[in-house]
């Protein structure tokens, strides 16, 4: 046996970059399933065991997967299903029905969807059923094969489970859990939800039929694990075509993660939200800067991306206002200071603005009332001010009471960044009263 050294394949840099983008984009944008979910071994084992018992041994079960958004609930479920279906018996027998609370907003629609997913539309035909329970029983009966005494197990996956609890009488949930408790058909009901208090939403009769089995995904990892995750998410796999390039890339990612400023930025992100989705958003922004002329991710990229993610949207909008609108906002701030947050109307704001013009200003022109009204309405359109709930129909527009939806610090910060702000306007803003 001759030992042949595998030649290192060197591809042109353009192709390498394209491939890197392809791989990483699939990871961040397409929610590609990892081989094993990290940090969730116990939950994985538990769920796999449960579903295996349902699929192979015909046991009826119900379970809820609970965790905040982006914690990896759907990912866990998909991994378990993928691994379960690798067993021949499960693949042959198990029927799956996937429902989503956002799509199936009604029990009737949900039933139609179940019928469709079980491919029983022909069987049902034009039959009219007296109740939901009858319909569901008919469907499950129809799944019984001719030569077998038991029918095939059905797995019901309910995404956004808490939305199903808002349907009328919770009929779908009641019937599903009822079937899972009685011995008619082996049914596994898996609910996925982001609300921790989901059990409070269930009616008493539904709750009693539920097995009270919950799997919690409460992202309990620390910052060092978070950093490790960043590193693995950005690294290229071993089977990359150009080994040299992959090694260079991975070592540059290593140095990136060891950089102090990057660590600080990631700490800020970690403190605000631990979930994977926001991490993917951040890394996606970094990835979008990778190109042939810049084939690696530098610390500056991550810092820029972090700044983009954490910027204040309202402050950005304040930057684009005209100077008249900005003066109106400063007048509103003064009114809020003097009258401690009581609502104001256009006349009051205009009055305050006129006081400023008389006293201090030499850069602002005294605009007519309709022009000021138009500026005020523009601010209302941007929802920077909102009308107080009341009889808005009966009052004239100038006298309608409004509240300012901006914070004191937001206005001051926006003033600092405002381009070519006249100094007397700035001083007026800084002064405490009037």
């Amino acid at each position: 046996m001759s030992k042949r050294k595998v030649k290192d394949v060197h591809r042109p840099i353009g192709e390498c970059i394209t491939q890197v983008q392809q791989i990483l984009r699939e990871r961040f944008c397409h929610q590609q399933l990892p081989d094993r979910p990290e940090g969730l071994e116990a939950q994985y084992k538990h769920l796999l065991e449960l579903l295996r018992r349902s699929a192979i041994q015909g046991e009826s079960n119900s379970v809820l997967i609970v965790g905040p958004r982006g914690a990896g609930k759907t990912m866990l479920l998909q991994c378990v299903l993928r691994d379960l279906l690798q067993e021949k018996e499960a693949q042959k027998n198990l029927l799956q029905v996937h429902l989503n609370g956002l799509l199936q907003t009604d029990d009737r629609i949900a039933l139609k969807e179940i019928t469709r997913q079980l491919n029983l539309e022909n069987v049902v035909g034009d039959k009219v059923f007296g109740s939901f329970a009858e319909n569901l029983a008919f469907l499950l009966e129809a799944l019984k094969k001719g030569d077998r005494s038991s029918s095939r197990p059905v797995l019901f996956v309910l995404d956004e489970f808490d939305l199903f609890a808002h349907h009328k009488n919770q009929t779908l949930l009641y019937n599903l859990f009822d079937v899972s408790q009685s011995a008619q058909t082996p049914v596994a009901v898996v609910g996925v939800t982001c609300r921790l208090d989901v059990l409070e939403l269930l009616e008493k009769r539904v709750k009693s039929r539920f097995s009270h089995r919950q799997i919690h995904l409460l992202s309990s990892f620390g910052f060092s694990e978070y950093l490790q995750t960043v590193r693995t998410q950005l690294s290229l796999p071993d089977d990359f075509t150009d080994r040299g390039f992959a090694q260079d890339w991975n070592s540059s990612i290593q140095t990136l993660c060891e950089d102090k400023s990057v660590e600080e930025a990631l700490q800020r992100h970690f403190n605000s939200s631990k979930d994977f989705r926001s991490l993917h958003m951040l890394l996606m922004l970094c990835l979008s800067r990778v190109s042939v002329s810049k084939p690696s991710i530098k610390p500056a990229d991550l810092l820029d991306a972090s700044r983009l993610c954490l910027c204040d949207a309202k402050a950005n909008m304040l930057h684009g206002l005209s100077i008249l609108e900005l003066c109106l906002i400063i007048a509103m701030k003064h009114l809020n200071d003097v009258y401690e947050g009581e609502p104001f109307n256009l006349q009051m704001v205009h009055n305050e603005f006129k006081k400023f013009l008389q006293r201090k200003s030499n850069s602002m022109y005294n605009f007519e009332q309709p022009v000021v009204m138009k500026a005020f309405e523009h601010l209302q359109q941007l929802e920077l001010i909102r009308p107080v709930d009341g009889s808005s129909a009966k009052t004239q527009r100038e006298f309608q009471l409004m509240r300012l939806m901006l914070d004191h610090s937001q206005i001051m910060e926006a003033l600092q960044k405002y381009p070519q702000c006249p100094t007397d306007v700035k001083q007026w803003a800084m002064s405490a009263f009037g």
Partner: protein
Amino acid sequence: MTALLQHPGYDEEKLRRVAEQLPCREVQAGLLLSLMGEPQQYSYPSIFIYGHRASGKSHVLHVLLKELELHHATVSCVECVSVALLFEQVLLSFFGCDAASLLPRSPSLSDFVRIYRQQPVTMETSSHQTVVLNPVVEDNVTVILLSEIVWDKFRPNTGCFEPLLLHFPDYSKGELQQILSQDRHPSYSAEFYSSYINILLGVFYSVCRDLRELRHLAALNFSKFCEPLEEGKVKETDTHKLWRNIEPHLKKAMQTVYLREVSSLQWEQMQLMEEKEAGALRGLSAHTHVELPFYSKFLLIAAYLASYNPARTDKRFFLKHHGKIRKTNFLKKNEKTSNHLLGPKPFPLDRLLAIFYSVVDSRVAPTASIFSQISSLVTLQLLTQVSHDDQLDAPKYKCAVSLDFICAISRTVNFDIVKYLYDFL
């Protein structure tokens, strides 16, 4: 021009064409392009673009999607008043009318997703101001949301798939100048037009930064600007004289066309007329539109006094022999309690008539014609009825006119209203 738009997956020529159509927006276009990636790669499923009106959001997106021939569907949520219209438009743009006809009569989101999944894979969709659909499809679809309002206001309370937020900053004064100078008139030089834009921006920039409005104003007023040039009075380089000619005109435009008090057609016609003939331009809320009969004017004046004077001061103003009003510290005028800032207060019919009789000099009999004039004032929306329609015996009203209007009216009847107003004591 530096070719900032470069991307491996797209043709150089196409990108150059795109860059030409998007002045001052290369950075944002580049960012969008790099996020979308090459046509066959995945892009982030949900992007939220926010920025002021006319900051180029839909324009950039439209140009990018059209020139680079990416499969897309554009939906305007202002047009789609029901979800069925939204679904139909999306399916129509992506898959043609066969797919759109598959939708049942009142389709739910479930039906839409089902039909969508049955069709072959496609690329991008963009929609304005809609709440996130949270697409459950696993294809390479990106939903791009465009809005003036920030994302924080849209977020549902249990959360959702957070979109990537992109801000389109407003144009700076220099950028506005650059863009506006692009639609210059062919028969005049570029410097001449940019000096015109400079003057226009000098008048309007502190009030309005909306590119669309400024373009409209520039187009309307350019002929007036060129007038002295055509008449031979000045040369192109005499900027000071040109400025003196156009500046009062622009100030007038701010009070009329900018506020849409007069239509653009009326404005153009006015420009064509000689200065002496033009006279006062009648706007929509001009006082001269409304000609009221004599007693109606006094009724309106009485209504204004009833709305803006507190009831306890009536004695002082309208009785011949009134007692002293004690001015305590509490009554000292505080700005906040000035009725002209708070708005008109409702008053009963009896009070209106009482003030009316004391204000009108001659003796007036309470005939039906007086009462019918009150109802016609309500119809004209100069008074508003505050009480319910069912209450016939004690109706309440509010006066809905401004101080300028009532001063103009009272001048026509030689009545000095300011003397009778409590706020101006």
